[in-house]
């Protein structure tokens, strides 16, 4: 859209507002879920994170969850900024610590729906230890991990997810470290819901978010997203559009696939789908059941609204 066109649209919108309420609205459908006073966001043009946010907001809307009881926690990095744009109780924490921070929130007030929204470097690099332990405990968290194969915010350094052979600013001759296969990591540690989509799969991704909101325990959704500024540029892959085109041509949906078989190679097929969807008692359920069994009437669980002591 040209600058001129934008101006026209803005003035039209202003006029429409001046005319008073009408059937059409100038508000974006997901605006109520965003902190509009913080828009424009910091993401680059053709970055995939915005699309994931849109799918997430749509999932919140369509599931009708109580937004007052929903908290979002991010770490540091490009995706780490998501918490800052969502109109929920929002926590922009330290690098790698979104999951343990979220664990504290959930245990401090068990009635909350706690969502962790962060990047691959944050959650599987510096935060990798927390990731595996939260999955092991089946901690009641929904974890959305946007994987763009690179450290974007700091300028394109190697990530634990960078495919073999891909170039990054700290692997200028190509990456020779084996990357994580994140669905396999999550599933093998005990996650009860594991899915992967790309940000081209808008409907399926939204559906996965909705499904995960309705589940309990450690729910993990990996979203492959383009980083045009760094990953695409350093690897001469064109623009974000070209990466979306690549997803279109190379994403293959295989629901129920063995997570061991969903590795991502450089510019190779991306296996998507829902790989794990099981029900197992969560950390809180295990704790409650265990204490009820061992302590009986002596057990006093923390109330759903938390352990705050009132006057």
């Amino acid at each position: 859209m040209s600058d001129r066109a934008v101006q026209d649209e803005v003035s039209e919108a202003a006029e429409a507002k001046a005319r008073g309420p009408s059937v059409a609205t100038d508000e974006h459908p997901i605006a109520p879920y965003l902190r509009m006073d913080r828009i424009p966001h910091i993401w680059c043009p053709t970055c995939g994170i915005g699309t994931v946010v849109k799918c997430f907001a749509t999932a919140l809307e369509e599931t009708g969850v109580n937004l007052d009881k929903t908290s979002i926690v991010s770490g540091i990095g490009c995706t780490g900024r998501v918490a800052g744009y969502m109109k929920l109780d929002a926590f922009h924490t330290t690098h790698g610590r979104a999951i343990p921070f979220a664990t504290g929130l959930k245990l401090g007030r068990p009635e909350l729906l706690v969502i962790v929204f962060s990047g691959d470097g944050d959650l599987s690099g510096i935060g990798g230890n927390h990731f595996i332990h939260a999955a092991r405990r089946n901690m009641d968290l929904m974890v959305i991990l946007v994987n763009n194969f690179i450290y974007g915010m700091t300028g394109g350094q190697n990530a634990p997810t960078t495919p073999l052979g891909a170039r990054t600013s700290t692997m200028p001759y190509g990456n020779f470290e084996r990357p994580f296969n994140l669905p396999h990591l999550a599933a093998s540690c005990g996650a009860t819901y594991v899915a992967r989509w790309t940000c081209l799969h808008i409907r399926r991704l939204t559906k996965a978010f909705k499904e995960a909101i309705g589940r309990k325990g450690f729910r993990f959704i990996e979203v492959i997203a383009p980083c045009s500024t760094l990953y695409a540029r350093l690897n001469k892959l064109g623009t974000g559009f070209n990466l979306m085109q690549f997803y279109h041509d190379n994403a293959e949906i295989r629901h129920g696939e063995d997570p061991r078989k969903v590795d991502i190679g450089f510019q190779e097929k991306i296996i998507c789908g829902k790989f794990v969807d099981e029900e197992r008692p969560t950390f809180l359920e295990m704790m409650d059941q265990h204490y009820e069994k061992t302590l009986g009437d002596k057990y006093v669980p923390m109330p759903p609204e938390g352990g705050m002591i009132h006057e």
Partner: protein
Amino acid sequence: MKADPAGVLTGAHYLDGDFACGEGAMAAGCRFVGGYPITPSTEVVERISRRFPMIGGTFIQMEDELASMAAVVGASWTGTKALTVTSGPGFSLMMENIGLAAMMETPCVVVDVQRGGPSTGLPTMAGQADMMQARWGSHGDYESIALCPQSPQEAFDLMIDAFNLSELYRVPVMFMMDECVGHMTEKVVIPPAEEIEIVPRKLTSRSVGEYLPYYADRQSVPEFARAGDGYRFHTTGLTHDERGYPVMSAECQEKCVRRLVEKIRSNADAIVRFEEFGTEGAEVVLVAYGIAARVTQMGMEIARKRGLKVGMIRLIVAWPFPEKRIRELAGEIKAFVVPEINYGQMVLEVERCAAGKASTVLVPHGGGGVHDPETIAEEILRAAK
């Protein structure tokens, strides 16, 4: 308000410092603990994990100290009072999210049962060498509150104060025990709940539309809203404005950091606490804290028997430091003598405040035990000359 009786184990007990500390936390209303085992602090969480299921508290053993501290900050945002417990090596790891707690203005308490260091050091023996870390450990500018119990009884009593101070000023409070106090067993009297004064989490009275998470005067503390009450607030470790939104500017940084510092500095008189004895007419004043204060008192008694005029300041709150009183005394005495189980930490503060008006003598101890009171007495004699 008065303490919740559920957490208060009223009566006379024979407890070690770690257990007493745990009892203090529960009496203070702490209902979330995230921790990672480390000697010599582990008994604190062992005590708490035994009692918590019966009083509505949740303990979780996290995967490391980075996670423990992050979980504590997260839990505190629900209004649930939160604690973590560690020793030197874990304290180092916690610094990251102690900084986050300072920046987000999150009330919480961090217990450091100090052992000999650096690195793995002397896991089962006493040290006091984390005192500067308690003040300056996390990067950036912030003010700290640190308390130093010298006995199991004080480990209980001061724990209540630690939580109250953390609530009043919305800061992480450092509870600087040491291995000796943590592992010594003495009589601990726990009063009835109605005699324990608790500062409750003060929630904002503003409506959702009016609330700004970091709105406060230059020296005051913002009002708290907890996660799940409908305020849909935003908070961040980045430099932020009153809305809790990141603002990357020197101007916002100045405002943000100045208040983090000023809310403690301007209230220092209310926070500072020390015990003072025999300073009137004294030529030498001892300054000590924690377990070192007990043997320092013995050194003082020996020196007095030898005819010297010696007084003592025992720091109960180490940070903020009792600057005013030390400055006053500096003009009246010959020397300060500072025995501490490190190679010179709080002595630097004494020296700074003495400002050349009185000399300052460090009586160091590398850790692993306590001073010989006779050594302290000798240093007093030398300083008095």
